């Protein structure tokens, strides 16, 4: 309990309190180098899909891991933004960068509405409300004119970035996705290490204490919700540009479940855990896509195993292990 207050205090005094050790920098640099070179030996579409979902999972983790709110409706933001971006580039002929921004803004707006209702309750009720409202959005997408119902928005043009760079060239598209992914991660990193993020952590640790310290907890929660929705939307819009379509699949509750799984599997509340989680889930889906064995069964079993046996997730368990601690990682309990 005292921890929560301490973090909140240091948060408001000096922002980036966490020190970054050498080990982390080396791992980060290696990861970035890998992603820069990856398209030489891995299928670019697969990599781009992976990065989109990784960003989505990180955005989701911003809410669950750092604010302690479990949203069961993040598909609404991911899939909603996919529709917005698709509509903006296809019908309004906007350039991809504005399409992406519009998608993120639309998702943020959706997040504002859904969050406004959801933050009125806590815990499991919060989860159920977000699930119900995102299902409502699903029905809206099913019936609305601009989403083209069951068909979805097809053959979305990738267009030219800034009007110059042709995104139909796979390499260009890949590096755009990578750039957006890195920017997204930097935003998240900056956000959770800002005074705002510190207050969010204090809410996660002890909400009553945060209220008694005079913080308007509801506004902070809503802020985090909108931020998370916007970044999830950025990922959704990016996915639309990569695959050149937006369909109902991305707004279903199954998608909301998938992003929870990615985060849980990788490690809730770790910055890079969701990236690994997304990588594993996307790889698994790709691997099973050719067989007729349904992914849902495996997803479900992995869910149960994660919850029962390693709730810290792969990266979380690594951080907590002896090797992880030796390398200077810390993991909160």
């Amino acid at each position, binding site marked *: 309990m005292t921890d929560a207050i301490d973090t909140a205090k240091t948060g408001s005094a000096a922002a980036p309190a966490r020190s970054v050790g050498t080990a982390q920098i080396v791992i980060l640099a290696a990861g970035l180098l890998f992603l820069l070179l990856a398209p030489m030996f891995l299928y670019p579409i697969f990599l781009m899909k992976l990065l989109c979902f990784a960003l989505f999972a990180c955005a989701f983790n911003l809410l669950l891991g750092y604010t302690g709110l*479990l949203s069961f409706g993040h598909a609404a933001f991911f899939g909603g933004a996919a529709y917005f971006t698709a509509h903006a580039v296809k019908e309004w002929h906007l350039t991809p960068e504005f399409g992406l921004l519009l998608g993120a803004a639309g998702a943020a707006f959706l997040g504002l509405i859904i969050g406004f*209702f959801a933050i*009125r*309750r*806590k*815990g*499991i*009720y919060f*989860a*159920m*409300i977000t*699930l*119900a*409202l995102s*299902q*409502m959005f699903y*029905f*809206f997408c099913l*019936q609305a004119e601009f989403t083209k119902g069951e068909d979805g928005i097809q053959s979305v043009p990738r267009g030219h970035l800034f009007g110059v760079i042709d995104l139909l060239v796979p390499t260009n598209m890949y590096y755009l996705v990578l750039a957006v992914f890195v920017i997204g991660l930097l935003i998240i990193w900056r956000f959770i290490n800002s005074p705002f993020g510190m207050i969010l952590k204090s809410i996660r640790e002890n909400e009553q204490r945060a209220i008694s310290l005079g913080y308007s907890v509801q506004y902070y929660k809503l802020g985090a919700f909108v931020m998370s929705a916007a970044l999830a939307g950025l990922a959704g819009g990016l996915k639309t540009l990569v695959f050149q379509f937006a369909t109902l699949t991305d707004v279903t*509750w199954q998608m909301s*479940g998938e992003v*929870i799984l990615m985060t*849980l599997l990788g490690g809730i509340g770790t910055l890079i855990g969701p990236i690994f989680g997304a990588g594993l889930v996307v790889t698994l889906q790709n691997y099973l896509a050719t067989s007729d*064995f*349904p*992914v*849902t*069964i*495996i*997803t*479900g*079993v*992995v*869910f*149960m195993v*994660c*919850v*029962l046996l390693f*709730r810290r997730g792969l990266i979380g368990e690594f951080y907590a292990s002896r090797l992880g601690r030796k390398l200077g990682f810390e993991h909160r309990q």
Partner: protein
Amino acid sequence: MMMIFGIPLQAFLGQLLIGLINGSFYALLSLGLAVIFGLLRVINFAHGAQYMLGAFAALLLLSYLGINYWVALIIAPLLVGLFGAIVERTMLSRLYKLDPLYGLLFTFGLALTIEGTFRYLYGAAGQPYSVPPALAGGTNLGFMFLPIYRGWVVVVSLVACIGTWLLIEKTRLGAYLRAATEDTVLVQAFGINVPLLLTLTYGLGSALAAFAGVLAAPIYQVSPLMGTNIIIVVFAVVVVGGMGSIMGAIVTGYMLGIAEGLTKVFYPEASNIVIFVIMAVVLLLRPAGLFGKDA
């Protein structure tokens, strides 16, 4: 022909009946959720899957063993209840000390697994289950035509709801349950086997869901996806009613079912979402829910 608000009386009553039927299922399912939540503090996402299991059990018992509807109405809930009890004893019980969100995530995984398995085995398409001969046909009430099976569903679900309410409010076992909801440790100190009580409760909740599933089999198509589609709506019902009271869950279930049916008459486009809209309005006006005590 008589008209109500410019709608023919027949159409109005027909939709009202459909609303009442949907309401019966919402009530039965949200009742089961409330019973489980009351004691275990777990939101049972697998409730929809257990409802689907009930319907499939009836279908499979009929097609492989020739067991008819009436026997299935008893056997299917027992089987699913047993399955629930096993799941609780072996896995779910390990999660009680943790944040309730883990219970939700675990049962979500369970629901995905069950649903995926049935999709793999029986395909996503729905399969018909015929109405038992004794309840086939319909009767003309003078102002509307009532299919007998539908009337039966409304009556039986009402009986099941009231029965469960009586079990919890008026019997010794119910008194133990309520006491354990209030203070688990104290009840255990009085020598009552609380872990067994928890297992029984989860089994009972699962059995209720399966019972609703058997009832639903002749009305809706039996399909692996039938459970999750309804459970999300039931979650909204639970948010509206609050899980504080058993009676609250029942009343809210029927009310929202009827509201959905009436929306179909006046503004069909909104009928899928009307319950979610009501949920949003209730959250604005009474955030704790209509009958809710806790936030």
